[in-house]
């Protein structure tokens, strides 16, 4: 366990400014701050921009820093591209749902048959500074998956906001080293501050529970059985009817990891690009000659759910959904992952 610190608001501003000299820093930016529910986006920090605390998760998934939507994955036969460490990066604004979702990305790209070196280097060179949620979006439902709205693991440093500063908790050597590097800004923690954090956390959990109670969401332990037993239900066809195959749910999802490789000729060499792919796209599973195991939107919608709630439960012991609700917000067809699962549960119950 690492020692926990405290940083006062004024000192935090200095710390935030100082980081920019040595790191590439990304932090939340509020878009349309006057809107009903303010959205936050990651922004590269420069100049004397001040730190904005995001009370809930950002719009973009964390994965976009590690497997960008489009990047050059390789050059071949006369390569110029080399895999080197990228510039040291610090990302502020990460929430617990992002950290849980990121376990899926780590599992895919750091484990298995071979390691994706480019992903590993980016991961090694990035410091994740997460923070407790102080509020939630209408679509947030982390608690339904037994995920708390505050991080307990997976971060390098976690910030818990109090009225006059932040509790600063290192979660890794990387995080601890960063604090040591800037130790003049940090104070020892006091028990009263930790107690205040506990109260804040408990209050938010209570508020979120009250928000979720009327939604009557399915329990985490039931999801694998739901998608297995519900394979032939008409739920899929029914919810598919408004799907426009935009792939938005896939791209915005912090656990979706599928990509395709596409080659192109460059002057003296050949390049291989890696692009996000979406299982909602018609050609996702198509093979040469035209055979396609996922011919219909119904099949593809179901494929997305069996991947999240069956495949990953089998292979990683956890469903690949962190309750961030990004896919609900993005979907022009208003397909709601909570409602799909509830519909399966309802139909399976009535057929019994």
């Amino acid at each position: 366990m690492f020692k926990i610190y405290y940083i006062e608001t004024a000192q935090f501003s200095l710390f935030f400014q100082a980081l920019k000299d040595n790191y590439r820093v990304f932090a939340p930016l509020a878009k349309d701050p006057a809107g009903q529910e303010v959205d936050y986006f990651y922004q590269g920090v420069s100049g004397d921009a001040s730190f904005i605390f995001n009370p809930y998760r950002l719009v973009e998934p964390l994965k976009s820093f590690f497997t960008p939507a489009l990047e050059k994955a390789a050059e071949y036969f006369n390569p110029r591209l080399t895999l080197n460490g990228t510039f040291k990066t610090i990302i502020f604004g990460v929430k617990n749902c992002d950290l849980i979702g990121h376990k899926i990305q780590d599992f895919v790209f750091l484990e298995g048959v071979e390691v994706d070196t480019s992903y590993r280097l980016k991961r090694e060179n990035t410091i994740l500074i997460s923070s407790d949620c102080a509020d939630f979006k209408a679509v947030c439902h982390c608690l339904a998956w037994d995920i708390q709205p505050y991080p307990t693991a997976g971060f390098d440093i976690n910030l818990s906001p109090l009225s006059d500063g932040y509790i600063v908790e290192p979660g890794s050597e990387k995080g601890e080293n960063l604090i040591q590097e800037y130790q003049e800004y940090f104070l020892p923690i006091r028990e009263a501050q930790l107690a205040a954090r506990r109260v804040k956390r408990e209050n938010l959990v209570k508020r979120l529970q009250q928000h979720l109670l009327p939604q009557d969401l399915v329990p985490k332990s039931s999801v694998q059985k739901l998608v297995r037993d519900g394979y032939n239900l008409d739920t899929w066809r029914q919810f598919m009817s408004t799907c426009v195959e935009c792939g938005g749910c896939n791209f915005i999802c912090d656990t979706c990891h599928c990509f395709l490789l596409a080659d192109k000729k460059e002057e003296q060499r050949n390049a291989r690009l890696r692009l996000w792919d979406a299982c909602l796209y018609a050609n996702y599973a198509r093979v040469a000659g035209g055979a396609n195991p996922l011919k219909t939107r119904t099949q593809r919608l179901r494929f997305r759910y069996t991947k999240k709630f069956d495949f990953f439960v089998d292979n990683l012991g956890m469903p690949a959904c962190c309750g961030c609700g990004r896919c609900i917000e993005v979907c022009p067809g208003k397909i709601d992952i909570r409602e799909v699962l509830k519909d399966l549960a309802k139909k399976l119950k009535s057929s019994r």
Partner: protein
Amino acid sequence: MKNIYQPFEAILEDIIVETPTIKTFVFRPKLDFEFRTGQFIELTVPGIGEAPFTPSSDPGIKDRLEVTIMKAGKVTSILHALNKGVSVGIRGPYGKGYPLDNFEGKDILIVGGGVGLAPLRSLLFSLFSNIDRYNKVILRYGARTSADIVFKSSLPEWAKRKKVDLLATVDVGDPSWTGHVGLVTTVLKDLPVDIKNSVVIVCGPPIMMKFVNLKILDLGFRPQDIYLSMEKNMSCGLGKCGHCRIGSYYTCKDGPVFTYDVLKDIHDIWD
């Protein structure tokens, strides 16, 4: 540092025309390359793209690699238009390959359809090189017409080998064909095998595999003894890109050969 998406170079040394739509490409890899029979590679046409293929050559041959390819899609059409001497890219080998140890002391029934005989040829070479370890090899091969038979000149040669029983059939006969006419399922009767001490290896188009599998199960072969090659969209080859998932498996890293007892509870495997 290894880049898992980067292919290495191989030279296309020779092209053998097998049928009007199928060619065997002989490659000389510029790096040491070894594979186990049943494993596959990702073959790159530079600047165009890559596609998965299971080599058709003897894994015992280290300096050459043969891949038998049917013209079916974008990459294969361009491959078919290539001339000798050009460079291609190779990644791999990927997948688990055939578990030859499990075949020892057994009757090995091999059922092939069309270009599906390509990976099976690699298996046959592996079996032939240690034939004493196996009871016998029974090959049943079906092609649409006699013009669609691959490795046509090799078949009589294989049929003469010790411990080998070979029968080829065509769906549609013609005057040049004196052999059996009928779907490959029609030559699976009265097989000279001890079903209790056999393995069955099937490779061909999905529709053929589906019906062969049904027939084989009907004859009393056990699901765990039936090895099926799944054709899915294997893109990265490493279980990362997601495309080739069936149930809780990836075809690329957990297959592409699966026993039927693993597949039987997965929906829509033949689609």
